[in-house]
């Protein structure tokens, strides 16, 4: 069949010419400042960062390994340098309601200063207040108050005692209070003497005692009121002393923060609170030793400053990457301490989240991680919608615990969030989360590859130099660069494209660097890159080897020579992580008289995917359209992937399936030395498929192991020719005419190659020339039609006989 020429070895590989490079090694190349091939994403990021409007947060989408994180961080860091206005965020005690701590927003560096200043104030108060309360002035005034109180009390009681005594009654203490007893001539009257008194005298005494009892009761009732009055006076004195002391001590603090209203207000509240609670500073056991005071300062929690975000040493706006974006790590948390079996907390135990740290700057998050941590996504959206961070404990939200918790004041949020994730996540969020579109209005879509031409190849070489420099890898020589570029094309699965998966390239360069060092070379050469690729493949190749072994041992049945009717070699790709390899599969078909149905056995047993089923339906349609346009197609056929026990999907085998079906119909022997890949349209056109390189190499490996005959080869869609980046072994075999690669544009091209028969053109009567494979198929279909007609007549006669019998 001279009509179909195999591809030459040159057509199988898009070589990178060394002539276009005028450098010896990458160390001579100018490094790239902007990433290659990511102009669209770059523009989107710059736009997203620049625009200062609500909801213009970014979603950076693209598959892993494109260097999205690196690029985003670089851009944001450059941008952050131009935004130097920074703030510290602190939580302080709310002296009116301990459960609702207050927020202070302070200029950068002021938070820690305020904390130190407050510690100093407390230390000063702890020494000054006890001294004030031990002063002669205070003691004297307190003594005066006590004496006044005691004198009042004594006067009241003395007056009562005397009045009672004058009226012949003694006031006596009892264990719980007072009692009254009659006196006669200053002597207590004994019960027996009282009995002897005349009735009238007894009644008089009792009445007198009853009167005095009323007075005594009034005096005792007044006691708490008097004590309260006295206590008020003492308290007022203490306040006065405390106020005098604190006025002297706090003046410098007020002066230092006079420009900051929030701090000024806070200091005023501190002052008022200290005055109310001066007793706390006058500890009887604390003493005034310096060491003791230092220890005790830390116990005055209520006056501490919890510096949530400290920007003392920051020169630029924050760019925060939170690699574990749990709800707490994003929003912040309230910790507890266990005391005597009880969980306690206060404002000093409030911890910052990533949103706090990134406030005023940028926060980078992995979309997948945010979405997979419970409540993190909701928390993030809530914060962005409300423009504030409100720390709510998760356990409280879920009613898991019932300990006392805090409701800290919200912190105003001004942050640009950059989510980084795969495209699928972006489109799912777009489709299913209405809030997403409102909050993440800028999509920065990273390209996986870039066009391969002379200009881009030179830029790619500079990109390699940039990566090599950034990751401190040995420089590459020209051939090394060329080999990396060729591998980039292979990664792109397209000889005319270059992959932008920089992380894969960096790994390759690192490994090549390792092998170059092993061979004492200061430069990474093409052979080092080749070794690295071979070793990578070898490390991941176990399963491919096992599968190949099964074929060569005849356990999996694959013929690579001779001819067979209704049997063809299809090709599939198995993807294991980031490693893919091709392997042949035997496809067989049966065809007989029937109702025009092609059965896909894979689909019947639910081992076939939707796309595969679609391919089978398309080939059924082609069959009917091509051979039985004006009459029924009385055919019942079945297709199967032999020895396939897993899911089969994709339509890349539909061309092979159609060929094997035609073979079964027309009893046409097909060459087993050729394998076929390609999908078909209803019109029989062969369409491009993916993984062509892996499929060809997979089939080649089997043939090589069995011995190359020169007849063996693969038929691929013509559209896939540009994608070819086949390995050296295949290329060498093709060059030596031991293996061939054919391209096909129509299924009839494939049939001609497989059967060795011509397709034949229809004559005016619509018949194909005898001997062509189309004639064989059509002839068989006509036979089936005749059989079908005869069976139909027979059935009709039987039916009529039955009717007449009846």
């Amino acid at each position: 069949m001279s009509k179909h020429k195999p591809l030459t070895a040159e057509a199988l590989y898009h070589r990178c010419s060394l002539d276009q490079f005028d450098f010896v090694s990458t160390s001579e190349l100018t490094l790239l400042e902007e990433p290659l091939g990511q102009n669209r994403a770059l523009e989107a990021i710059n736009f997203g960062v620049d625009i200062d409007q609500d909801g213009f947060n970014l979603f950076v989408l693209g598959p892993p390994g494109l260097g999205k994180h690196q690029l985003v961080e670089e851009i944001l860091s450059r941008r952050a340098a131009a935004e130097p206005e920074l703030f510290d965020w602190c939580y302080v005690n709310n002296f009116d309601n301990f459960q609702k701590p207050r927020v202070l927003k302070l200029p950068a560096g002021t938070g820690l200063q305020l904390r130190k200043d407050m510690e100093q104030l407390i230390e000063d108060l702890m020494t000054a207040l006890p001294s004030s309360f031990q002063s002669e002035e205070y003691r004297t005034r307190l003594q005066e108050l006590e004496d006044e109180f005691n004198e009042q009390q004594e006067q009241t009681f003395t007056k009562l005692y005397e009045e009672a005594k004058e009226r012949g009654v003694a006031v006596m203490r009892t264990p719980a209070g007072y009692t009254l007893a009659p006196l006669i001539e200053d002597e207590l009257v004994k019960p027996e003497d009282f009995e002897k008194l005349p009735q009238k005298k007894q009644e008089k005494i009792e009445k007198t005692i009853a009167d005095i009892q009323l007075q005594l009761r009034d005096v005792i009732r007044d006691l708490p009121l008097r004590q309260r009055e006295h206590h008020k006076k003492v308290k007022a004195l203490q306040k006065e002393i405390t106020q005098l002391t604190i006025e002297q001590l706090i003046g410098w603090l007020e002066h230092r923060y006079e420009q900051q209203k929030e701090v000024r207000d806070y200091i005023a509240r501190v002052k008022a609170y200290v005055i109310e609670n001066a007793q706390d500073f006058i500890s009887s056991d604390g003493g005034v030793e310096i060491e003791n005071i230092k220890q005790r300062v830390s116990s005055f929690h209520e006056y501490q400053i919890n510096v949530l975000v400290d920007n003392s040493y920051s020169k630029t706006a924050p760019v925060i990457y939170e690699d574990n974006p749990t709800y707490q790590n994003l929003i912040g948390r309230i910790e507890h301490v266990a005391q005597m079996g009880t969980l306690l907390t206060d404002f000093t135990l409030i911890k910052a989240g990533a949103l706090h740290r990134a406030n005023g700057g940028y926060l980078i998050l992995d979309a997948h991680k945010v979405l997979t941590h419970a409540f993190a996504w909701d928390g993030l959206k809530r914060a962005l919608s409300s423009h504030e961070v409100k720390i709510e404990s998760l356990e409280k939200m879920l009613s898991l615990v019932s300990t006392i918790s805090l409701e800290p004041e919200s912190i105003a949020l001004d942050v640009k969030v950059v989510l980084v994730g795969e495209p699928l996540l972006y489109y799912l969020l777009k489709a299913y989360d209405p809030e997403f579109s409102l909050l993440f209005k800028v999509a920065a879509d990273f390209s996986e590859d870039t066009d391969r031409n002379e200009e881009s190849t030179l830029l790619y070489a500079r990109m390699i130099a940039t990566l090599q420099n950034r990751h401190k890898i040995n420089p590459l020589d020209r051939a090394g660069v060329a080999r990396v570029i060729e591998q980039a094309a292979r990664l792109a699965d397209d000889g005319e494209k270059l992959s932008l998966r920089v992380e894969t390239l960096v790994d390759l360069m690192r490994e090549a660097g390792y092998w170059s060092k092993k061979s004492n070379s200061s430069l990474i050469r093409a052979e080092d890159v080749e070794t690295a690729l071979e070793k990578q493949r070898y490390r991941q190749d176990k399963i491919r080897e096992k599968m190949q072994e099964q074929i060569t041992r005849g356990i999996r049945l694959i013929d690579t020579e001779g001819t067979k009717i209704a049997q063809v070699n299809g090709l599939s790709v198995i993807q294991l992580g980031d490693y893919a390899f091709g392997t042949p599969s035997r496809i067989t078909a049966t065809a007989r008289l029937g109702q025009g149905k092609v059965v896909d056995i894979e689909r019947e047993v639910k081992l076939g995917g939707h796309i595969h089923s679609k391919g089978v339906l398309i080939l059924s349609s082609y069959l009917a359209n091509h051979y039985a346009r004006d009459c029924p197609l009385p055919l019942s056929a079945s297709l199967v992937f032999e020895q396939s026990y897993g899911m089969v999907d994709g339509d890349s085998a539909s061309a092979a399936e159609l060929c094997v079906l035609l073979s079964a119909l027309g009893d046409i022997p097909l060459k087993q030395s050729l394998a076929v890949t390609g999908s078909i349209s209803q019109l029989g056109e062969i369409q491009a498929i993916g993984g062509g390189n892996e499929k060809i190499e997979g089939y080649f490996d089997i043939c090589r192991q069995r011995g190359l005959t020169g007849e063996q080869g693969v038929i691929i869609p013509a559209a896939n020719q540009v994608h070819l980046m086949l390995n050296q072994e295949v290329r060498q075999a093709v060059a030596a005419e031991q293996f061939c690669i054919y391209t096909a544009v129509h299924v009839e091209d494939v049939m001609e190659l497989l059967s060795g028969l011509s397709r034949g053109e229809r004559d005016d009567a619509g018949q194909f020339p005898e001997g062509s494979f189309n004639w064989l198929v059509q002839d068989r279909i006509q036979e089936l039609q005749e059989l079908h007609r005869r069976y139909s007549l027979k059935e009709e006669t039987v039916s009529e006989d039955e009717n007449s019998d009846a």
Partner: protein
Amino acid sequence: MPETVNKTRLLQVTLAVGVGDYSLANIELAVQMATALDAQVHGLFVEDIDLLQTADLPFSVEITLATAQERRLDMLSIQRSLRAESLQFRENLAQTAERSQVRWSFDTVRGRKIEAGLSGIESTGLMIVGQTLSHRQTPAGTPRKKSIMVFDDETTGLLQVIELVMDLGAAQLVELTVVRSEESGASTLLQALEDKLKNTSNLVLTQLAGYDLESVIKQSAAKPDYIIVSRHQPSEVLRAFLEKSVCPVILVT
């Protein structure tokens, strides 16, 4: 004038308290003094005979300090109350003494506190007669100056006890008021105190004349926290002190 005695070792500190006089401060004072003197402490609770008799009167009522309510007073309930107070006193004394590793003993007697104090003084080294009027106010934890009033009759033991009381109150300012009879001559106690206290800025020494407690206290700037007096004073003088005093009186042999 009572005879001057040499400094002797005091073997027992007795704390005599009556109804409503029971206070932890008094117990603490007695135990600390006993510790300092290496003596034993003896608690004496006096069940007031007058109160018991009054309870037997048909119209007797008690007005409680806590509620200002009246309640019927009878012999049985007052006995129970007294027993409870006595037991509590005993328990607190025992705890305080044991904590300070001081030997202790305890007695409950029925009678009158002043009589019991005066009669028991012969058999003890140092007698503290507890006096606490519940309506007197000393806010807890408030630092205030301690005031000690001493009635000087040249008894040698006085100096020893003054030193002791001042040592126990060393952390606080102590104001010492020495009262002497107008007709007394030069005071060796005053001389000794002046020598001893000249370098102690915490102490304020005031000298007053006269023996009438009421007038003396009126003249004094501060109400005394403790009164120290020699037991060698005539019994009517001592009785007057004990009847009119509103603070613990320390009787010194």
